[in-house]
Structure formats: structure tokens, C-alpha cells
């Protein structure tokens, strides 16, 4: 290997800076996976990008199987840095430069196109920080070579609160393991899988109470610790996330949107509302969702669709009372879905949700959410709802009730679907996933029996959801 001592040579010789170790594999072209990030200045040139190599002629993208090295590790020429899976094989990719692995840009399990940057290599330790900031810059810019983050999965409301998914165990839970062999807490006894999970979930085992045999820490203890710390973090995250820009003790006037929300809420007090709740089994819906999720279908779209189909059978629930004297039967079923956005709440509307097929509905929803986030929704896209859905299930809320938006007849509050022990009709005890829904309606036009029948229909549709995909 040519030693590249002079920076000026680098541009020409970049191609051979990284190669996979297994050169014997057939049909393999020698990849080029590093390149200086910038040729503008000599100093910057010392930070090199590590690119996804082309491990075979047919390879278009590669998956990072594992990073052999961690950020900050010193790399010596010829050492394996990363294991890449192509369409044909897993291969170790080694470096032909000495330096430091400054920043990993595509995590393990991530996929990157051939030729896109997967990490940064700094020549000296001092440049790591510089490389890190560069990595950040790249991943935040739209032209980031890293794969896009997975689309928001089951969230019906894009979550604006930065809830950390993985946080170290909250200090509250720090209790020494009661394992007799733990030498009074000096030694942690944890099963192999518990240790593996702890590493994955970033849980500090010293803070986990073992419930396994002899008080050893087992996998479920680690999972419990991870969940409780997330919950704790979610709690503590709120004041923290609210902190920037909020001066405690000050008075901040409403924004336009908040003003509108306030007016609407007060106005809603003039409407005589009542509430009817229902528990719906969601096993079949969950299974359907799993099946069609790869086709881009979201849970929000599924719920909206189910609601719209039920409304089609009960037009009165889709009606409203505008003047206090008459029913207004809406000609179309437009499902508004409440979305929390920065500094407020908005209700993008899925038009004709009973008629539009589930795939188009899902696509429409994604567009609406993107627009809502960018605050680019047009009035007809958020003000034409005839029935509103509000879902707080993703926060673990099991039930709540909603305030009826003025001008509509009903709003449905959807709680989380949770595994529940139930007695079945044949006298057995079984486990089913159930969610609670609670409809708030204007009693001037919608009566208790109407809502009850509507909910019964909705439950039937959700419990046997084959009609949702038609």
C-alpha cells in the first residue's frame, strides 16, 4: 500500500484507502470508501469520510452489521473498523490510515447507499471534536447521506416532546442487588441476556433490583428498569424541554393559534355535551396493522378509516347543530385528527375517509402531518372536519375525555391498546389487547342510543377489520 504522507497526493489516491479484507470473494470490485471531506483547506483534509464500500458489482446499498471500533478508538492501518453486509456477504472493512474513529454516522443495523459516508476518521485526537460537529452538521442537513429516520410508526400524533427512548436508570431506582453473592452490592450478578439487554438499553446494572433466582438480575428486570427510567425521563423531560425560552414567573401572551384554541374551548361550554365509553378488542386490528404496515399504512389512518365506516352507518353521529334549531347532516365524512405541534394543537382533516382507500388515506395523512409540522396547512385542510379523533394512546394513556370542538357533533378520545386479562364467553380466562374509546357528543343532536349504536358498529369493524382494506 502506498503510504500517503502528503496531503496533496490524497485526492488522486483516495480510492484505495479502505478495502475489505476479503479480497478473494468473487465478483468483487475494490471499493473506495474514504475520501477527504473537503479539499478546500489543508487542515480539514485530515478528516476523512468513510464511505460505504461497493463489495460486489451488484451492490447498491449495504447494511452495517457491526462497528468493530467505537467512536474515539484509535485505528491502526490494516485494522478492521466495520462489518458491512452486502447483498452477497458480510465483510470486514479495514482502514489503510492511522487515525481516530471520530464519528459514526450510520449506526449498527443502519443501511447506507454505496458511496455515502458512514463515519468520519480524524487524523489526530484533537480533530475528533471538529469531526463530530461536522457529523452533526451533515446528519442535520437535508443532504445527509445517512438513511432517513424510520417514519413515525404508530403515533397518531407526531410527538413534539423529545421523549428519550433510552435513558440511564433513574437514581430513584438505585437499590443494591439483594443477591447473596453480590458481596453487599459490590458484585452484580446478572444473567447473560440481562447483561446484553442492559448494554443495548443503556441501563446501569448497579441500579437494577434482581428478581431472578437467588436475587440475580434477569432480562425482565433490565426491561423494567429501562421502562421506568423512560417514564421518569418523560416526566422530567417536560420541564426541561419547556425550559428553553420560558422564563419562570413571567407572563407570556397567547400566540394566534393559542388564542384560537382558547376561544374555541370557551365557546364549547355553550354546548350540552355528554360522554359514552366503550372497550374495544384490538388483536385483529393489530395483526392487520402489522401486515400492512410495510405498505406504509399508519395506525391513525386505520382508526380514521374504521371510524368513517361506522359513521357512514350512523349519519346522525356525523351531524352537527349549527343554530340550536336543526340538524345539519354533513354530506361527506371528514375525519379530523388532533395533532400536537410546537406551541399548540391542530386538526388536519382526512377528507372522505369512508371512501378513500386505506393506502391513499395513509399517504394523505403523512402529507398532512408534514405540512402541519411545517405550519403550512391550508384552512380547508384543518377546518373542515365533521368528526374528530384524539389519540393519547402512545403516551400510555388508557382513557381520557375530550372537549367537543364547536361546529361538530362528536369527538372520540382513543386510549392505548393494552394486553388485558379477560374472561371469555366460554368461561375461560384469556389475554386480549383492548383499548378504551370515549366519545363526547352534542346532546342536542346526538342521543345516548345513537352513540351506543355507533360504538357498537365501530367495535365490530375494529374487531373484524377486513373491510378496512377492502
Amino acid at each position, binding site marked *: 500500500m502506498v503510504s500517503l504522507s502528503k496531503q496533496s497526493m490524497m485526492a488522486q489516491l483516495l480510492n484505495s484507502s479502505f478495502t475489505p479484507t*476479503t479480497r478473494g470473494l*468473487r465478483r468483487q470490485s475494490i471499493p473506495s470508501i474514504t475520501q477527504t471531506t473537503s479539499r478546500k483547506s489543508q487542515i480539514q483534509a485530515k478528516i476523512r469520510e468513510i464511505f460505504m464500500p461497493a463489495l460486489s458489482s451488484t451492490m447498491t446499498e449495504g447494511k452495517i452489521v457491526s462497528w468493530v471500533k467505537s467512536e474515539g478508538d484509535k485505528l491502526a492501518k490494516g485494522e478492521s473498523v466495520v462489518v458491512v453486509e452486502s447483498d452477497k456477504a458480510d465483510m470486514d472493512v479495514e482502514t489503510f490510515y492511522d487515525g481516530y474513529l471520530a464519528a459514526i454516522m450510520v449506526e449498527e443495523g443502519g443501511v447506507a447507499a454505496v458511496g455515502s459516508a458512514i463515519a468520519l476518521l480524524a487524523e489526530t485526537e484533537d480533530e475528533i471534536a471538529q469531526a463530530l460537529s461536522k457529523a452533526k452538521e451533515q446528519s442535520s442537513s437535508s443532504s445527509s447521506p445517512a438513511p432517513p429516520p424510520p417514519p413515525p410508526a404508530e403515533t397518531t400524533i407526531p410527538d413534539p416532546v423529545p421523549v428519550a427512548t433510552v435513558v440511564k436508570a433513574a437514581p430513584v431506582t438505585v437499590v443494591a442487588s439483594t443477591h447473596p453473592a453480590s458481596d453487599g452490592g459490590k458484585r452484580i450478578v446478572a*444473567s447473560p441476556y440481562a447483561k446484553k439487554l442492559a448494554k443495548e438499553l443503556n441501563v446501569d446494572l448497579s441500579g437494577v433490583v434482581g428478581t431472578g*433466582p437467588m436475587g440475580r438480575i434477569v432480562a425482565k428486570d433490565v426491561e423494567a428498569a429501562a421502562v421506568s427510567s423512560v417514564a421518569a425521563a418523560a416526566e422530567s423531560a417536560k420541564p426541561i424541554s419547556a425550559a428553553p425560552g420560558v422564563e419562570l414567573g413571567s407572563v407570556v401572551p397567547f400566540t394566534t393559534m393559542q388564542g384560537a384554541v382558547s376561544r374555541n374551548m370557551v365557546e364549547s361550554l355553550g354546548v350540552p355535551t355528554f360522554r359514552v365509553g366503550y372497550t374495544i378488542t384490538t388483536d385483529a386490528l393489530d395483526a392487520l396493522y402489522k401486515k400492512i404496515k410495510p405498505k406504509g399504512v399508519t395506525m391513525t389512518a386505520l382508526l380514521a378509516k374504521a371510524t368513517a365506516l361506522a359513521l357512514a352507518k350512523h349519519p346522525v353521529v356525523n351531524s352537527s347543530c349549527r343554530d340550536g334549531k336543526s340538524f345539519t347532516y354533513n354530506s361527506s365524512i371528514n375525519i379530523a385528527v388532533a395533532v400536537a405541534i410546537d406551541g399548540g394543537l391542530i386538526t388536519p382533516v382526512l377528507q372522505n375517509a369512508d371512501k378513500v382507500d386505506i393506502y391513499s388515506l395513509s399517504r394523505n395523512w403523512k402529507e398532512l402531518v408534514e405540512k402541519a409540522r411545517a405550519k403550512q396547512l391550508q384552512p380547508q385542510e384543518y377546518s373542515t372536519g365533521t368528526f374528530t379523533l384524539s389519540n393519547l394512546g402512545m403516551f400510555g394513556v388508557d382513557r381520557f375525555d375530550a372537549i367537543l370542538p364547536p361546529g361538530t357533533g362528536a369527538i372520540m378520545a382513543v386510549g392505548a391498546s393494552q394486553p388485558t386479562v379477560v374472561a371469555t364467553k366460554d368461561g375461560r380466562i384469556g389475554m386480549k389487547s383492548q383499548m378504551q374509546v370515549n366519545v363526547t357528543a352534542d346532546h342536542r343532536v346526538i342521543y345516548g342510543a345513537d352513540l351506543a349504536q355507533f360504538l357498537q358498529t365501530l367495535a365490530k369493524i375494529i374487531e373484524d377489520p377486513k373491510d378496512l382494506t377492502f
Partner: protein
Amino acid sequence: MHSLISASPISSLFEPYASHTALPSSPAPFSLRFCGLRREVLQLSQPKYRVVSGSLKKTGNYVTAASSGSNGSPLKSFDYDLVIIGAGVGGHGAALHAVEKGLKTAIIEGDVIGGTCVNRGCVPSKALLAVSGRMRELQDEHHMKALGIQVSGAGYNRQAVADHASNLASKIRNNLTNSLTALGVDILTGFGSILGPQKVKYGKDNVITAKDIIIATGSVPFVPKGIEVDGKTVVTSDHALKLEFVPEWIAIVGSGYIGLEFSDVYTALGSEVTFIEALDQLMPGFDPEIGKLAQRVLINPRKIDYHTGVFASKITPAKNGKPVIIELIDAKTKEQKETLEIDAALIATGRAPFTKGLGLENINVETQRGFVPVDERMRVIDAKGNLVPHLYCIGDANGKLMLAHAASAQGISVVEQVSGKDHVLNHLSVPAACFTHPEISMVGLTEPQAKEKAKKEKFKISVAKTSFKANTKALAENEGEGLAKLIYRPDTGEILGVHILGLHAADLIHEASNAMALGMRIQDLKFAVHAHPTLSEVLDELFKSAQVNVEERKPVAV
């Protein structure tokens, strides 16, 4: 079959548990998990062979003459032409071949027909592995989903799984017994020992004479000192195969074939596993590249952790409400390192030859660390370095290559010799396999061994590789994980070693091992046709990708 009890044994005996110092300073004795695959190790462990090598040919002639006794005048008439002590796979293979050669044959067994392999080794372990393979597949939702299959909650009944293993063992045992009796081999019951030249005692006081005698007494699990085996919470493979309980957490001492296969079984049945390995890396016997992939496929994604570079200096079974306690010391410094408290421990540190009470002193033979010294024709060597006439030793008892099929091959080789045809078994062409999911198999040299040999003998080696990801059948099965690797001489096309990790690797290796046994060259193998689409195309591709720089001969017949 064969893997479970076969391989790692020797390695452990090389490790300081046993008389490590007795071993001459071989360049890298630890790099070898099954002894005998490398010739230099054989020679080093049997230095006396060289001393007597001068007289070898003469003795060889003598044997030939004696075996054709019918046309000569034998000193006296014998009860049998051939008596085999031990009815394991080695003894069975020898007996069957002896009958084919027209020899009057008896086989002595003090325990059960079938020996370790059939009763406490390869056979029952394959039953457990068949279960673990299916469990693993059914539990792998992702894999099932990718195939479009929906399965709800796979479970197992421990006793039924255990019964499957014991039923299989007894079925194979019956088959073996029937095949012997059907062919007219006398099965003599009782422990056999050698009284003197060509004279054997079995049972209490039955004495028989035989023109030739084969020792095939096999081996037993090796338990290093400091480890207390109670058969319940601290067990060897003998106990573990009965699957009397599936612990939540089990330590496996030794990460050779036996340990690795058991880790596959236990993790599939829901246990968590901790490996304890004396060497610095897991699975040290494998080709390093295969070992690395095996770690990635068989260890990392499973509920397994490990301690390497440590000995289990003391293991106490669970009692009085306390768990199994394992004390670990650093393999090099011998410093106390850690104490583990676990539900159970499986000792898979290898196997020790079962040669006590054989009466070897009557013919002046001294065992070496328990092994019966033999030459390359399995002829027993006495304390003075001379060959003992008419006495052979095959299988685990000689320690050359502790694999059931190697024992059988050695037995056949001996029968060839005693029936008048010289024969030397090429141990380098004996394949070995580990029946994990996916399987691992190999034949010949590893890459480092081949490099060493190439350096010594001044030739070049090349390596070719193919991936299961490029194989249609493997992809159809959604089992693309795997690698096949060929180490060869580019100047001659000679195969030095083949290593496979992937779906059905144990079945795939034979194309390579047969080619090696028959001396076939890659440039000829390239023209052999493989059915499409089959896994065998992995090897096809491997051969085709090799670059041999000799003038290619024309295919013999196409």
C-alpha cells in the same frame, strides 16, 4: 453424527489441566482442537514412532505373511481371526469390514453396543439439535414472517424431547447390534483385557485367542481437577444428553464442538449460557475466519456471554439452597479472577481415553496420558518403542483423531492390513462437523496451518471464498448466512483445506473431503456438474473461483 464426543477432547488434555508439560513444544498445540489432524502433532506426541521407523517395513511384511495364514503353517489355530475390544462405532466399522473380508470375528463389549457415539454422544445430541433447530426457527418471528408463515407460540415438552433422544439412541443401538449378529459376528459380553500376545480375557474368566486384536475402547468425558460432578447441577455430556432439566442459566466450560452444540440446544430451549474458555478466544480450533463468523452468528445474537482466558479452578454443585459456584482464575497468571453463581454447569473440556484395566502391562505397553501409542498404521507400540505384533488400537483410545467416523476408518484400515493389503489412512481427509444452526464443517488444514506448512515447504497458497448469500437454494430457505472457504495450492490445484459455515454445512463437506482423499485437483473438479439449485453449488462456486495456474487438462468425459 460424530461431532459431539469427538473433537475438543484432546485440546483440553493439552491444556494445563492435564500434564501439559509432557507435551513437547509444538509450535501451536492449542490451535488444534482435534488432535491428529496435523501430522506434526501426532509425531510429537509419539516420538517413539521415529525410533522404530527403520524396522517398520519388516514388521509390515510379517503382518502380511501372518494374515495369509491359510496357505502357510500357522503356529497354532486361533479361536478367532480378529477380536475387537469395544463395540463402539470404531469396533463396529472394523467388524463389518472384517466379515466382508471373510475373517472370523468377535467383538467384546463390557457396556452397551454402540459406545459413546450412539449412546452418549453424537447420536442423542443430534436428536436434541434437531429439536433446537426447529425451536429456533419457529421462535424466529422475523424469519417466519419473511417466508410468509404465521406461527403462534412455539413450545416444547422437556420429557418428550428427552425421550426422542433416548429412543433414537436405542433404535440406533438395536440397528448396530442386529447388523453384527446378522453378519455372524460373535458379541462377547464383559470387560475385555489382554492377557498376552494374541490372548484376550473377557468377563470373569473367559479366555480366547485371536490372530489379531484391535483395541477400540474409546473415551470418557474429561473432568479437570477441582470440578465436582454431581450429575445434576454439575454435569458432563453423559448427563446433559438425558436432558433431565433445562436450567435457566448454565455455564459451559469449554467452547469446542461439544460446548458449542450444547449452547445451541440450551439457548433454543430458553436457557441463558455463559461460556468459560481457557484460551483467549472462543472456538479456537476453527479456522479464524470461520470462528469469527461463528461468533457473529452463533454467539453474539444469542443469550450467551463468555469469559475467555480463564480456567474454572473450582466448581461446586448446587446444594443447601446455594447455586452452583464456579471460581475462575486467569489462565496465565493463575490469579483468582471472578466467582460465578449459576444454576448449572456443563463440563465440556474434552474427553479422556478409556484404557484402564486393559492389561496393557502384560504386553509391556505404556499409555501416554492414557492414550495407547500407535504408528500410522494403528499398530501398538510398546514401552521400548517396538511394534507389538498382532495388536492394533483405533479410535479415541489412540487419540489420533477423536471422531467416531475416524475410528471407523481406522478400523477398516486395520482390517485391510490384517487381510493382506497395506493401507494407511490419510487423516487430513477426514472431515469434521459441528451441528449447530447453522452447521460448521471442515476438512484438512486451517488457513494459519496451511500458511505454516507453505512456509516450511516453500510453496504458495491461495484462498477462495463464497458466500451462502449468493446461493439460490440458501436464499430460498431464507438462510443466506454462511461462508465457504477453500485453501489450495495455486501451482498444483491441490486442496489443502475446506471450511464451511452455513446451512447443511456438515453434509456439504464430503465433496471436498472425498476429493482430498482421492487426490483430485481443483482444475478437474471445476468441470463436475452440480444440480441447480442446490446448496452443493456453494462448493461448485468455490472450486470455480479458485485460480489454478497449471495447464488445464481436458475434462475426462463430458
